[in-house]
């Protein structure tokens, strides 16, 4: 019971304080509209169907980018985590590349991919790539080498070795990467959707920001928060299932 309610206490307290602050005039409602005003704006957007359009567009972009970038990150992480030579060869480059802000890359991305969906997909993939890569890589390195040795001497090779030993051992770390990426994909959309978009929550938020529609900016922010929660529930469910053997995750 308490466990069900407790997680919602801080958000509710924050919302309550915010509403109070606006109601009592400590905060100008023009600077920061009250939660109630944000709610109204949300309802209007929802009723007009705009909200769903944005959400749908962004969700598609986010998931596609996650699949591509996360997939590549995972595979490269497997590679560098498993083969010392690959690590020596690639890790430096990847560490350099991932440090490049997507925002700075936009001119080059437009150059390579134009201004269509491909460019947005690339940006999301680019950003999502790294947490998956880094966590997979470290996950694999942290698997108990005794267990790998044992499995090898029991005849496990290649795919069998990975699916039975290395991946399950790296899983706690890989799931951290997934959790992180699931958040990052939304964050990157706001960057990607500054490249000539017509819809999407990033577009909606930045557009509203441009026209000083603070209530819609806040709708965007709350939407991001809710999406974060959804991704989190998903990640927790995966953890709960796949790590049910792990005493730390019970």
């Amino acid at each position: 019971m308490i466990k069900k309610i407790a997680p919602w206490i801080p958000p509710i307290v924050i919302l309550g304080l915010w509403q109070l602050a606006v109601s009592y005039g400590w905060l100008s409602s023009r600077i920061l509209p009250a939660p109630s005003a944000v709610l109204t704006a949300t309802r209007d957007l929802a009723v007009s169907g705009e909200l769903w359009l944005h959400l749908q567009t962004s969700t598609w972009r986010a998931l596609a980018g996650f699949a591509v970038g996360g997939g590549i990150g995972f595979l490269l992480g497997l590679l560098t985590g498993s083969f010392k030579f690959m690590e020596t060869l690639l890790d430096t480059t990847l560490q350099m590349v991932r440090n490049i802000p997507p925002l700075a890359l936009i001119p080059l991305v437009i150059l390579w991919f134009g201004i269509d969906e491909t460019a947005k997909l690339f940006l999301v993939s680019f950003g999502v790539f790294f947490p998956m890569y880094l966590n997979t890589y470290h996950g694999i390195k942290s698997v108990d080498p005794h267990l790998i040795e044992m499995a090898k001497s029991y005849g496990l090779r290649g795919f069998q070795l990975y699916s039975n030993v290395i991946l399950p051992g790296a899983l706690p770390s890989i799931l951290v990467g997934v959790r992180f990426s699931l958040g990052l994909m939304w964050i990157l959309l706001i960057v990607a959707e500054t490249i000539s978009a017509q819809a999407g929550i990033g577009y909606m938020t930045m557009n509203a920001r441009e026209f000083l529609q603070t209530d819609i900016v806040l709708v965007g922010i709350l939407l991001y928060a809710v999406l974060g929660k959804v991704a989190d529930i998903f990640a927790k469910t995966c953890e709960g299932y796949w790590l049910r053997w792990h005493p730390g995750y019970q």
Partner: protein
Amino acid sequence: MQTNSIEHNTVKSIDDQNRTGATPHGLSIEIHGLGKSFGDRHVLQELDLSIKAGEFIAIVGKSGCGKSTLLRLIAQLDSPSSGQIKWSKSPDQARQQTRIMFQDPRLLPWKSVSSNVALGLGEDDKAVIKKRLKEVGLEDRGHEWPIKLSGGQKQRVALARALAHSPNLLILDEPLGALDALTRLEMQSLIESLWVKEKFTAVLVTHDVSEAIALADRILLLDDGKVTANIPVNLDRPRSKGDAEFANLEKILLGKILNRSKVH
């Protein structure tokens, strides 16, 4: 209430015969001038040893004398610093036909007990897995996570896993150290009966002198990185502890072990 009772009859069953890789004879091994160092520490030095196909060898020796190191070299998990090891097959084949039970159980925590035993076996081997689990007295624990098992239970799962493969060379590093006297005897007869049936080569490290005598054709005493004694055990099987010859041999061996450190 757990039931740990061990099924004695099953070890005699015959449905093991036509299984994967079960060859009538084990590997033979020739070791010449073997040496292994970790940094400055010379663990094995100029070690010579030859093991016949199908022989049961027991190795005893002081803690830290290099027994596990030797086993790892034989199993090709590590490479020697000097000298060489030859198998009756190519090293690759030998590796494939060798199974080692490590000193620590090394169970995969994310797999159930029976999946741990099933490691490296195919779908068709389900019956064998079940049988082995039953033989080590854990048939009702197959679905559990290894973390829930007691120390001795973990060791028995590891034993079941090693025995499920019918290797040509079976290496056991203190396989029964965490077991009580009764379970220990039962496991000994399990190992022996499998060995008799499948005729693999067996190398056993143990600290229990009577265990070595009960199981081995030959007992090696390892000290200072070398084989300092090589004692054949010419008793008929099944061997009984109560036997006078058995007791005599035990006394001799124990004497060698206990006096050893005073010799040099």
